[in-house]
C-alpha cells in the first residue's frame, strides 16, 4: 500500500505546530498502524531528521498510552480498539490519512502527537480509591457480591485511561473517565462507604483541571476503545446528586441506568 500522511508536528509545548505531509510506500495491509508509523520514522531517521514522537507501549490495546486522532476520530475508524490495534487493511491504497494529537486544554501537547495526561492521574488521586491500607483484611469471600454487580463494576473498570473520551468530546469533558471509576466503586459494597465523598472530590478535581461538562452527545461512548457505557455518567450524576442532598441512595438495578 502507498499512503500520504498529514501529521501534526510540534517541537515542544511552547512552540507552534503545523501539519507536515509524508509519503510511505509498500506498507503491508497486515501491519498495524503503529508499525506503519515505525516504518515512516525509520525513513525519517535515515534522512537525518527528527522522527514523529508518539506515545505507545504495550501495543496490545491495554496500557492506554497510544493516543492518535486519525482522520478526525480518536484511535481511528474502527470501533472498540486502540490505535495500536488498528491495522492498515482498514485503509485503502493511495489514501491520505490525517494524524493529530488529542486536542483538549487539560491535555497540552508536549511534542508532535504526545500529550500530557497527568490530569487523569490527578483526578484519581482526588478520590479514585478505597481508603484501606495493606494488610488486616478479612477473607475475600466474606462479602458475597452479586455477579451482576461485579460484572457491571468490571465493565466500568475496563477503562484504560487513554483519554479518547475527552478527545472526542466537543466540550473536552472527562465525565466518561471519571464516571467509570466512580461507578466501579459505587457498584461494590466495599466502595459504597466513601461513595459520597469520592464522587464529590473527583468531580471537583475534574472541574478544577478545566475539563468541560457533559451535554449528552454520546461521542465519548462511541469512540471509547473499551466501550465504556455512557450510563456510567448517569450513575455518576445520581451519585453526585445524592452526595449533595444526603438522600438515601436509589437501589441499583443490574443493567445500568
Amino acid at each position, binding site marked *: 500500500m502507498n499512503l500520504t500522511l498529514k501529521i501534526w508536528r510540534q*517541537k*515542544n509545548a511552547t512552540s507552534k505546530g503545523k501539519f507536515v505531509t509524508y509519503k510511505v510506500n509498500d506498507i503491508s495491509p*497486515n*501491519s*498495524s498502524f*503503529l*508499525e506503519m508509523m515505525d*516504518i515512516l520514522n*525509520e525513513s525519517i*531517521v*535515515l534522512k*537525518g531528521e*527528527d522522527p514523529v*514522537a508518539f506515545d505507545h*507501549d*504495550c*501495543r*496490545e*490495546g*491495554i*496500557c*492506554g*498510552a497510544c493516543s492518535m486522532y486519525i482522520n478526525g476520530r480518536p484511535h481511528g475508524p474502527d470501533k472498540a480498539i486502540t490505535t495500536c490495534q488498528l*491495522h492498515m*487493511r482498514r485503509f485503502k491504497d493511495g489514501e491520505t490519512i490525517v494524524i493529530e494529537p488529542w486536542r483538549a486544554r487539560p491535555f497540552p501537547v*508536549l511534542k508532535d502527537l*504526545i500529550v500530557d*495526561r*497527568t490530569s487523569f*492521574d490527578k483526578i*484519581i*488521586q*482526588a478520590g*479514585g*480509591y*478505597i481508603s*484501606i*491500607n*495493606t*494488610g488486616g*483484611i*478479612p477473607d*475475600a*469471600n466474606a462479602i*458475597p*457480591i*452479586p*455477579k451482576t454487580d*461485579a*460484572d457491571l*463494576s*468490571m465493565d466500568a*473498570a475496563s477503562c*484504560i*485511561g487513554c483519554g479518547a473520551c475527552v478527545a472526542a468530546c466537543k466540550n473536552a469533558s472527562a465525565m466518561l473517565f471519571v464516571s467509570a471509576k466512580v461507578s*466501579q*466503586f459505587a457498584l*461494590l459494597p*466495599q*466502595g459504597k462507604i466513601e461513595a459520597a465523598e469520592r464522587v464529590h472530590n473527583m468531580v471537583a478535581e475534574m472541574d478544577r483541571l478545566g475539563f468541560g461538562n457533559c451535554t449528552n452527545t454520546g461521542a465519548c461512548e462511541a469512540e471509547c476503545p473499551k466501550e465504556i457505557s455512557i450510563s456510567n455518567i448517569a450513575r455518576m450524576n445520581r451519585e453526585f446528586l445524592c452526595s449533595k442532598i444526603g438522600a438515601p441512595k436509589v437501589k441499583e438495578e443490574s443493567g445500568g441506568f
Partner: protein
Amino acid sequence: MTELNSKIPKGQLAEKWNNYKAHTNLVNPANKRRLEVIVVGTGLAGASAAASLAELGFKVKNYCYQDSPRRAHSIAAQGGINAAKNYQNDGDSVYRLFYDTIKGGDYRSREANVYRLAEVSNAIIDQCVAQGVPFAREYGGLLDNRSFGGAQVSRTFYARGQTGQQLLLGAYSALSRQVKKGNVELFTRHEMLDVVLVEGRARGIIVRDMISGAIERHAAHAVVLATGGYGNVFFLSTNAMGSNATAVWKAYKRGAFFGNPSFTQIHPTCIPVHGDFQSKLTLMSESLRNDGRIWVPKNKEDAEKIRHGKLQPTQLAEEDRDYYLERRYPAFGNLVPRDVASRAAKERCDAGYGVGETGLAVYLDFSDSISRLGKNVIEARYGNLFQMYEKIVDENPYKTPMMIYPAVHYTMGGLWVDYELMTTVPGLFAIGEANFSDHGANRLGASALMQGLADGYFVLPYTIQNYLSDQIRVPNFSPDLPEFLRTEAEAKARLQKLMDVKGNQTVDSFHKRLGHFMWEYVGMGRNAEGLKKAITEIAKLREEFWKDVKIPGELNEINPELEKAGRVADFLELGELMARDALDRKESCGGHFREEYQTPEGEALRDDQNLMFVSAWEFTGENKEPIMNKEPLDYEFVEVKQRNYK
C-alpha cells in the same frame, strides 16, 4: 568466588516466615517519617511496594518511564493470579501451591522463598478484593476460579482476560491515595540511568527527565528496583515496547550479582510472527488452554496443503489431527507447563507439521468447547482475547482454529536477591520480575502477578525494615555528594557518547539483529556451538553499534530514539551474559533447553549432581569476563524428581 548468604531463616518450612517476622528489626513510626525510600517502577511490585511503604510512614519517591504509573506493563497480564485459597474444595493448600511452583520451576528455586510466596498468596486476594478489584464471581456471589498450566486444581482468580489490568489499577489506586496524602512523590516520564553508591551502599539514583532531557540526582536511604524483566533483549517479545533492562543492568555493573540470566520463559500461546515490520508479539492467555485443544495435522502432506491454502483446518477429519499434548502428556494434556508446551510446539513445527504461511504455527481449537458449552460461554470467558486475535490476524477464531506459536514472554532470571529481597549491594533491593525470583527455571502461569504483589505488599515492607532499622541515625543524603556528581557525570557522558556516534544505522536495526541472534542461538533450543557463536556475534554487533548508530535530535528534548539507544546498548551487553550463562549450564531445566542434554523422549534432562545451584554473575569491569558465583540449592523438604506430566 564470593560466598553468597541467602539469609534463609532456620526452622521448619512452614515456620520460617513467621519466625522471620517475629524476630526481624522494625523501625518506629517517628523514625519512619525521616527515612526515604526510592522505588523505581510502578508495576504490580513497584506500585504495591511504594503504596505499602508510604502507608507505613516512610517517605517514598516513585519513578516510571511511562506518562502514568497505571501504564506499567503488568497491565497487560491477562489470565489470572494464583492463590492457595482452596475455595473450590479441590484439594488445594499452601503446600500444594508451593510444591507445584517448585516442581514447575524444575527444582531450580529456593524452597523457603517459594513457600513464603504460597503462604502470602491468600492475603493478596483479600487485599485486592478490599481495594475494589472486580474479580469474576459465581452467581452465588463468591469468587470464581479457573485452571492454569502445571496444576491439577483450580486456583486462579481472574477478572475476565484483564486480570493484570485490574490488579495494577488496584495497586495504582493505593499509590494514588498516598500521592494525595503527600507520602509518595511521583516522577512520571523519568528513566533511571544509574544507581549511586556511597560507601558501598545504594543511596540514590540518576534519572533523566524524558520531557526536558534534564539529568537529575535523587537520594534516599534505600533503593528498590521494580523495573520488570528483560525479554525485550529478543526484540520481538510480549513485553511492552519500552520494557527495558537498564536499571538492573546498571545495578549489575555497580556490584549487584545477576542471577540465572539465561532463564527465559517462552510462552506457548502467542500470535505467530507475520512479517519483518512486526514490532511486538501478542500473547493469547494461557487460560485459553482450559477450553482450547492444541493440534497439528497428523500427516505432513496435509500440513503442506494447509500452508499453501489448499486445505482448511476445519476440513481436516478428526482422525487426521494430532493432539500432540494430549498424546504425549495424558495426565496434564493441554495444561502442561509453559516450557513443555512451547518445546512440544517447536518439535512439531521443526519436524514439518507446522501450519500457517510460515509453517511456524500450531492450532488452538475451540470447536469442541463451543459445541459442548455454547458460543456464549466461550465468549463470556475469552471474548476480549478472541476480539484481539481477530483484529490482528483477520480471522474469526469462533469459526476457524486460532494459530499460535511460542514467543518470549518472561524472564525468570534477574538480580540475585537474598531472602530479604536485597541484592549483593547493601540497601539495593529488587522485587517482582526484576529479581531472579521464586520461579526457578520456569514460571507457572498466573504466578507472576502473585509474586509481584507478594513482594510489594507483603514481603518487602517487612524485610526492608530490617535494613532501615540500622539507618535511623543516618541523616538524609544530599544529592550533592561527590559520589552523586561523579555518577551523574558518567551518565551524561554516556548519553553524549551515544549522540556523538552520528553513524548510519538506526537503533531498531541493531535491536532487530540482536533479537535475531538471541532467538536463533539463545532461544528455545540452545547448544554449545550456537551459544559460542552468539557470544562472538553479539560482541561484534556491540562494537558496530558504538561506531555506527544514528540518533537524531538533541539531548535536551523528548527524544525517543535516544531513549531506545540507551536501552539497546544495555541489551547488547546483557544478551552476551545470557549466552554465557546458558553455555555454562550444561543441563536442560525448565525454560533452559540445551539440545545436548535431553532424555530419549526429548524431555529436559537435569544434572542435579553438579548443577543444582543459582548462578550469580559478578561484573568485573568493561570487556572483562564476569565471574560466576554459585548459591547451592538445598532441598530440605521436597524430594527432587524428574518432572513428570504424563
